[in-house]
């Protein structure tokens, strides 16, 4: 897992003809964590999708070394399957063994729910299932979008521990959240600091 890196240089993002942010730069090495903060709609999820390579940048560059795991608002698990079989599809695609999957289920306290169909899970349990998918995949770069949403305090602790273990193992975590997370992140990026245009520009234009 060593050697993972995620670099953003002067990245700008345009969605639906509207610029969300520009000039975002960030360099994360193995063991580096970053917390994206900011109000709703500021572009946290978009920045994560940029990091994942699912969105093209409008300007600037994103370079990744190592695989990426993304947990966004969509579960991406087959609803009719028992939880462990739905997760096993991704584990097989990731080349992760059954041990990694069992470990991930245990880390998110889901072992007792392994045989329950995904559609029967509650909001918090689904969020934990998504995090288990990220853990089991073994990718060095984790991109977590609002990972704490819907989690109770016990699960938040589990999330914090999982992130800590991942960082200690040389992984990279970028988490976006509008609320405080029990995650020790050395870098905090407030997207409100990267407005699409400088206030001075607006005054000059006016």
């Amino acid at each position, binding site marked *: 897992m060593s050697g993972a890196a995620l670099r953003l240089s002067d990245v700008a993002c345009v969605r639906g003809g509207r610029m969300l942010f520009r000039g975002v730069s960030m360099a994360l090495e193995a063991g580096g964590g970053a917390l994206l903060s900011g109000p709703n709609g500021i572009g946290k999820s978009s920045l994560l999708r940029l990091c994942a390579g699912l*969105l093209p940048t409008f300007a600037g560059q994103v370079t990744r070394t190592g*695989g990426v795991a*993304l947990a966004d608002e*969509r*579960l991406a698990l087959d609803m009719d399957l028992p939880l462990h079989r739905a997760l096993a599809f991704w584990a097989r*695609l990731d080349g992760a063994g059954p041990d990694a999957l069992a470990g991930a289920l245990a880390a998110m306290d889901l072992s007792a729910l392994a045989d329950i169909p995904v559609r029967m899970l509650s909001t918090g349990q689904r969020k934990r299932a998504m995090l288990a998918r990220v853990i089991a995949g073994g990718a060095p770069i984790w991109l977590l979008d609002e990972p704490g949403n819907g989690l109770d305090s016990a699960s938040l602790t589990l999330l914090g521990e999982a992130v800590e273990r991942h960082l200690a193992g040389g992984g990279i975590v970028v988490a976006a959240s509008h609320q405080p997370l029990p995650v020790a992140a050395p870098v905090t990026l407030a997207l409100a600091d990267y407005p699409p245009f400088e206030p001075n520009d607006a005054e000059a234009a006016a």
Partner: protein
Amino acid sequence: MKLLWLLVGRDLAQGWRSAGLWLPVAFLLLVASLYPFAVGPDAALLGRTGGGMLWIAALLASLLPVDRLIAPDRDAGILDQIALRGVGEEMVVIARLVAHWLSFGPPLMLATLPAAALLKLDGGTIAKLETGLLAGTPALAALGLLVATLTAGLRSSGALAGLLALPLAVPLLIFGAGTLGDGSGAAIKFLAAASLLLVAITPFAGAAAIRAGRE
């Protein structure tokens, strides 16, 4: 290769669970049992027109599963998750094409046998019909999948898919129905050529559509 079978396996299992397998078969059998009521139980008339009717039924049946081919996986984030793992969209579309044909072509060809009996088709016509379906169903599957990738994420995509696919399917219908009457074998060759063309284009066009639809 292992990756391809993993994706095909999942797509087949999904198709099996969502009952998409039985929909085209039930549709074809329903049309074949309704047709004699509409035109009357004249065996000669049924035998002459039944083959063409089954081709129309097969064409329309291929549109039934279109709205569950791509859109649910796109909305659930599964296509994005596959892309994150460095798997090209082309591979996703190829896997889905294989799985879609397997769960659509052979069942439809099997259902054609009882349907042909209902329409009093003779043995020669049944053989020509089955050969034509073998050559033509890959094209129908590819066309359905292509339209599914193009319309995924749009509202009322099912209706739009029908409007998009039917004009493109006209050559398939002409050559498919042509195989029944013609002795020269030209129609089946054109049908097979159309199949090859659509199967070759679909992975690239479908992948481009999935990428363009990502937001």
